[in-house]
């Protein structure tokens, strides 16, 4: 579905590389978590896939076709994109935001309306209640549901997500992660999701790619990464959620003993 071949990106004419020699493949229907600390090149990698940025060298293929041989705007319209910090149009209603891409693709109006209703239902926003509201009248979680609905409106096979749930409170984030994962399975979407939260990557990703300083350190399923980390950094990163869960268990355990003693 997607293939990156020796992709490099330099913002200073080749002195330093934000992305250096990254290659990987993502299969159809797979969700790849692209993880790393800020500045590691994960967002640049994502943006090169729909040509929001151009690679300095290397090739990117979507469905076997080189993206650079396609019209950038057409390419982007066929790839869903969920933005960091949501990025809804503040002057458009929920429905107008969601319909933007089908309208850019010149769908017939009745199909646009129908599709709008379907995707709003899909992300759990009742169309009758939400269609005519403006983004400023929604909670953060509702806004990102609209963001997801907009990305899915034109029925893309591929969706790119740039830290989509980063700005949300923990409970809302957990709900949305779960719901999006089930939507992704149901629609068999191919997704690349940039995140800096290993728990999120583990919970949602079929595979995880770890990047550091522009390089791809390791790519594999959560189990592969846990069992055979290729690098101390990968080990530390992947063990973090488990270590925290264990620590949490201990605390809860100790707590429950104390409660029992008081009984």
């Amino acid at each position, binding site marked *: 579905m997607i293939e990156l071949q020796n992709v490099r990106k330099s913002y200073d004419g080749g002195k330093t590389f934000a992305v250096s020699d990254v290659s990987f493949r993502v299969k159809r229907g797979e969700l790849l978590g692209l993880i790393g600390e800020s500045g590691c090149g994960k967002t640049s990698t994502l943006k090169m896939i729909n040509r929001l940025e151009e690679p300095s060298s290397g090739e990117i293929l979507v469905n076997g076709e080189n993206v650079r041989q396609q019209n950038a*705007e057409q390419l*982007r*319209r066929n790839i869903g*994109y969920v933005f960091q910090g949501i990025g*809804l149009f503040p002057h458009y209603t929920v429905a107008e935001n969601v319909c*933007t891409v089908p309208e*850019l693709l010149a769908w017939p109006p009745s199909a646009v309306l129908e599709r709008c209703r379907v995707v709003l239902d899909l992300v759990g926003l009742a169309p009758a209640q939400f269609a*005519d509201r403006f983004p400023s009248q929604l909670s953060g979680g509702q806004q990102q549901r609209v963001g997801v609905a907009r990305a899915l409106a034109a029925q893309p096979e591929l969706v790119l997500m740039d830290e989509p749930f980063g700005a949300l409170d923990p409970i809302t984030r957990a709900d949305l992660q779960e719901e999006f994962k089930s939507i992704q399975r149901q629609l068999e979407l191919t997704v690349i999701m940039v995140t800096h939260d290993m728990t999120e990557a583990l919970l949602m990703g079929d595979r995880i790619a770890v990047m550091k300083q522009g390089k791809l350190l390791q790519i594999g399923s959560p189990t592969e990464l846990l069992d055979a980390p290729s690098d101390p950094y990968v080990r530390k990163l992947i063990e973090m959620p488990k270590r925290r869960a264990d620590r949490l268990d201990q605390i809860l355990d100790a707590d429950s003993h104390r409660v029992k003693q008081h009984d």
Partner: protein
Amino acid sequence: MTENLSEQLALLPEYFRGHLALTLFALFIGIVISSPLGVWAAQAPRVKRPLLTLVSIIQTFPSVAILALVVAMLGGRIGSLPAIIALVLYSMLPIVRNTVTGLENVAEEVVTAARGIGMSPRQILTKVRIPLALPVIIAGIRTAAVWTVGLATLSTLVGANSFGNYIFTGLQTRNLLAVTVGSLAAACMAVILDSLIGGLQWLAVNRNAGAQTARYRAVKVLIMIGLTSVLGVSGYSLLPDRKVDFVVGGKGFTEQYIVAGAVEEVLQEAGFTTEQRLGLGSEVVFQATANNTIDVYLEYSGTVWSNLMNREDNPGREAVMSEVEAYLAAEHGMANLARLGFQNLYALAMRREQAERLGIRSISDLKPFADGLVAGGDLEFFGRPEWISLRDTYRIDFAEKLTFDTTLMYTAIAEEQVDVIAAYTTDGRVAEFDLVILEDPLNAIPPYDGFLAVSGDAMNNRLFVETLSSLAGKISDEVMRNANRLVDVENRPVTDGVRYIREALTE
């Protein structure tokens, strides 16, 4: 007072019409030109800085200078066109600047999102950036509207009717009521336009959150009604002016208003329809007559002699007049239709008491005392050829030379702050303040014969020529001075001055 007020209010519809039409026309053209320029500048950094610098520089030009330059560039054409061009130039800065600022300040993440979902640069501009920048752009238009209403008062100087007619006529003829009416009317128009455009801005800001509220709908309806009525009224303003036979022009001081009024009455009694274009700059009224926009106005031989012919010598009253006539005919197709009889000269004047004490009757007598005396002149006198000529001919200079607004100059000599002033021979205040005019035995000051300058077109109408020729020699220095005095000193309306002149004509 009430008579004066009703006289002023009778003029209101015409001035209102003119002012509103000028303002809206200029504002509309300003928006049409400036907002695309702003959009362009926001996209192209190479255009932005030079453009913003240019419109800022235009703004720093004195508005009167811009008006004069526009008239000159249009080959002396006066009326609405030069006024609108000048107003459009002035409206550019706020609209261009706010358009650029508004477009640049659209949140980066929204623009990125628009790119990311596949909008083309044009779609990003029209669907995202412009709509989001709209409140800021409208704020710029709002500023431009208020400036334009204010500056439109200056259109009077180039012969377009506006509330400025009240203000300039009022200032010159010391009719403070007229000044007040004109200023209040302009202020009201500015406030109304400002609140209407402010309402549009409010709608643009609140269209998201408040689209459904009753208040939003109410404001929307109110603004629609307001805008429709303003547009309706201005549509009426744009009705073509009725065609008149002759246009009477005039510069911006009392004597000009009075003579123009008398000329107009005489023409109307001969059966012609007329209209006035008064309060014009000296250069403007001359150019307009040369190109037949104005048919007749009061000009002075000395003005043509020194300002247009650039002559500094003084061959005497008759020789100057005939050379001026030859020049007007040859260079501008204009003619002297009637030499009225009076001269409006610059002349040195002193308080009678002081002049008698020092035994001064002529400028030659003044010479031994001059370096101990303080002189006052109007804003231009000490830069004019008349003063240079006086200074060089009599080899005279004063201890101090002060410049004043004309009215204040007379107050200054009355209160002994200055000893000598450059007065005008027909000025009613010379008599009022008991001043004596010093003789000029060496003819240092060129003659300033008042005459009716007439356009080439008007000279072809025989009845017109016959009618106005009858005024030749009918207005003496004394008649003119008394008529001026009625207005300037006794604060009577210009119409009283006109009546006084008409009585002198029939004698």
